[in-house]
């Protein structure tokens, strides 16, 4: 079953409290999303680690129930 955009956002914010999360439903089917996550905690962190932090926040759903999430991570200026 696909995940709702609000659930994705809530899980990310629960794990990365300062994160600002912007979710776009790419196909309008509740199954293909893009997420832009901005957090000061990403500063100085390699991109792979930033993405791993978001995947960890999603607790194993990525690649499973959440099959398509195009992810962009940003540290604020």
């Amino acid at each position, binding site marked *: 079953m696909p995940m709702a955009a609000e659930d994705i956002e809530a899980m990310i914010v629960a794990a990365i409290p300062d994160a600002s999360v912007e979710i776009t439903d790419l196909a309008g089917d509740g199954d293909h999303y893009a997420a832009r996550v901005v957090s000061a905690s990403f500063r100085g962190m390699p*991109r*792979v680690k930033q*993405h*791993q932090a978001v*995947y960890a926040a999603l607790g194993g759903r*990525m*690649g*499973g129930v959440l099959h*398509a999430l195009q992810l*962009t991570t940003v540290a604020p200026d």
Partner: protein
Amino acid sequence: MTDDTRARIDELVKANPVLLFMKGTPLFPQCGFSSRAIAILDHIGVDYETVDVLQDQGIRQGIKDYSDWPTIPQLYVNGEFVGGSDIMMEMYEAGELHALFGGTDQAAAG
């Protein structure tokens, strides 16, 4: 992941300077993300090898544990995990991917 699978992945990433684990083949990618990864590599014009994870269930699951990364495609350069297609695109746009390939063994040899 079995020790055998880990050993096979180890061997693959060490034997191929630029290796993409993907769904399908460069000519017939079976997923939009794999297709995007191929498009980036082709656009840069680097030589690469691919592993079709759909042909090997051991590697399909094993590579996720090996890289601690939940999705396919996955790019390895000189034995190091670089990232998935989103990171490839970010690095491509920032010019970092070109710089990375400038440092591969094959570039040095050529």
